[in-house]
């Protein structure tokens, strides 16, 4: 009879008590796991997607919105910027690389991004099959898009106006899939990339033209550089010196705004952080209640078991043995609870991700991180702490008195 078996059997002699304790611990650990996984994954995604981008220039408005729309493809763009002005910035000596973006269309909720070949080197994109886009209306699609939308090289599709719904389809121009990207583990997995000219063509060179009901094809033919617009520019600096000078220059001397992904991500995270903190405290509270419940359970059962324990002593068990039996019970309860909780957390995250609409912020419940070991350790610590008082009591109990009473 190993001590583990003795403790194990005793725990399950009261299945409801044991289940309640395990449930509480699993619940607390589950919430903590979800928070831990979600925040790590979001942070990771934020960092990965803005890795090589120092600055985003776009129309005036909320800088956070500009970052969200141009780097994470979540929010709506702040507006458009004139191509001529943008071109001036792209030639600025501080700028090493500038990538123009033209947003505004989608295919079944997947954003269509008009850009040029600089985008490929900025994100280090690789082709899985086919080619990168070259001519207008050629599209290279992200790996997830190919899978989820069932698109192959050679397929054609119509873009819809707007960023989320397929309300007004641009029936006049069909895109042709010319290539599929290798999975990149960033936003580009969920994008359709095409030449800027395609987006201009769709909108007859200008967004307004579409709303006014002009004929796209006719418009596109007599377009002029002065009318053309980008949505934003992704900029890589040539030297660190630019950090101090360039954004200020953009904000003060042009009609555009510059936003730093690093700064805005930090700001965004501090906003989300409040909610995360609240939930975290909530989970810690549940864990605390769980610890108390384990304590009460062990303490109460100790009263009923005092005779059992005394008998064990008469059978030759030392005081230390009884101490370790009680501690072991606390440990078993919390260990099971924590393991179930961690599994639960992964399951919940996987469930959430399967309901997630926005493919850009999609989370994965199957990724394990080393911080989860801290959760496990915390669970075990709670087990020991909750069991320590009952264990000390068992250690100290006067068996002669207990036996004499009965």
């Amino acid at each position, binding site marked *: *009879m190993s001590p583990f078996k*003795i403790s194990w059997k005793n725990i399950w002699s009261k299945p409801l008590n044991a289940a309640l304790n395990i449930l509480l611990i699993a619940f607390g650990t589950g919430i903590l796991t979800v928070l831990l996984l979600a925040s790590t994954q979001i942070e990771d995604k934020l960092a990965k997607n803005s890795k090589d981008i120092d600055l985003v220039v776009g129309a005036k408005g909320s800088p956070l919105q500009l970052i969200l729309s141009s780097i994470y493809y979540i929010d709506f763009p702040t507006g458009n910027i004139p191509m001529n002005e943008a071109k001036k910035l792209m030639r600025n000596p501080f700028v090493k690389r500038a990538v123009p973006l033209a947003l505004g269309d989608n295919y079944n909720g997947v954003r269509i991004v008009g850009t040029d070949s600089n985008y490929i080197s900025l994100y280090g994109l690789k082709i899985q099959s086919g080619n990168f886009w070259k001519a207008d209306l050629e599209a290279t699609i992200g790996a997830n898009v190919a899978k989820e939308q069932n698109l192959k090289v050679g397929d054609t599709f119509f873009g819809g106006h707007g960023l989320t719904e397929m309300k007004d389809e641009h029936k006049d121009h069909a895109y042709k899939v010319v290539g599929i990207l290798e999975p990149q583990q960033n936003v580009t997995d969920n994008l359709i990339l095409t030449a800027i000219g395609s987006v201009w063509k769709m909108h007859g060179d200008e967004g307004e033209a579409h709303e006014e009901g002009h004929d796209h094809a006719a418009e596109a033919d007599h377009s002029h550089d002065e009318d053309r617009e980008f949505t934003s520019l992704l900029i890589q600096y040539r030297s660190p010196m630019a950090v101090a000078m360039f954004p200020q220059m953009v904000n003060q001397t042009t009609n555009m705004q510059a936003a730093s992904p690093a700064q805005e991500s930090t700001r965004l995270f501090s906003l989300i952080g409040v909610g995360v903190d609240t939930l975290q405290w909530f989970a810690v509270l549940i864990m605390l209640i769980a610890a108390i419940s384990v304590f009460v359970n062990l303490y109460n059962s100790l009263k009923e078991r005092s005779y*059992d324990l005394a008998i064990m*002593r*008469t*059978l*030759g*068990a030392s*005081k230390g043995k009884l101490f370790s039996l009680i501690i072991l019970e606390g440990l078993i309860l919390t260990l099971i609870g924590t393991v179930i909780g961690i599994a639960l957390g992964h399951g919940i995250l996987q469930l959430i991700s399967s309901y997630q609409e926005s493919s850009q912020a999609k989370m994965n419940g199957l990724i394990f991180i080393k911080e989860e070991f801290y959760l496990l350790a915390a669970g075990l610590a709670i087990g020991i702490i909750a069991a320590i008082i009952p264990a000390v009591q068992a250690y100290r109990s006067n*068996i002669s008195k207990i036996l004499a009473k009965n």
Partner: protein
Amino acid sequence: MISIQSVSHRYTSGHELQFADWQVNNGEQWLLLGQSGSGKTTLLHILTGLLTPTNGKVKIGDTDLYSLSAKKLDAFRGQQIGIVFQKPHLIKSLNITENLLLAQSFAGLPNNKKRVEEVLDSLNMLPKKNAYPQELSQGQLQRVTIARAVINKPTLLIADEPTSSLDDHNAEAVLALLKEQSTLNQATLVVATHDKRVKDAFTLTYTLS
């Protein structure tokens, strides 16, 4: 086997109990007689190393009980002394076999299922080896606690009021079992009781006044 010399115990209330010196030889079967409150249980606890006497010396075999460290004393008790209590008490979460294995484990001995079955068989309890304590009757439980007391072949078998909650028939049976088991396992037997039905079964008697 047992030797107590000028042993006395002072209760927390201040009341002091003096025990007459006592010498028990190997293999003898003794009756420890006394009214309730006369200190029978106290003396049994002192004999089994559960209660340190205020004064005096207690020897079991060649071992001076209270010169042992706490841990060694527990191990000694587990291996050398078998105890049967008035109320048969088994660990409810374990079945009969496991309860007996538990006694082997706690005594620091390897688990020996053959020995468990042998003892259960000698007490006619083998068919119940996988039953849980709540499935057994009082009489059956008492048999199992006797089995548990002799499982490690102790040199000393002590029973505290083993018959007081039993009817005549069962009391007689239990007493016979205790004597039989102590002979079978070559253990010295001490039965503490105030039960008059038991008296005639023993020739050696230590009386507490």
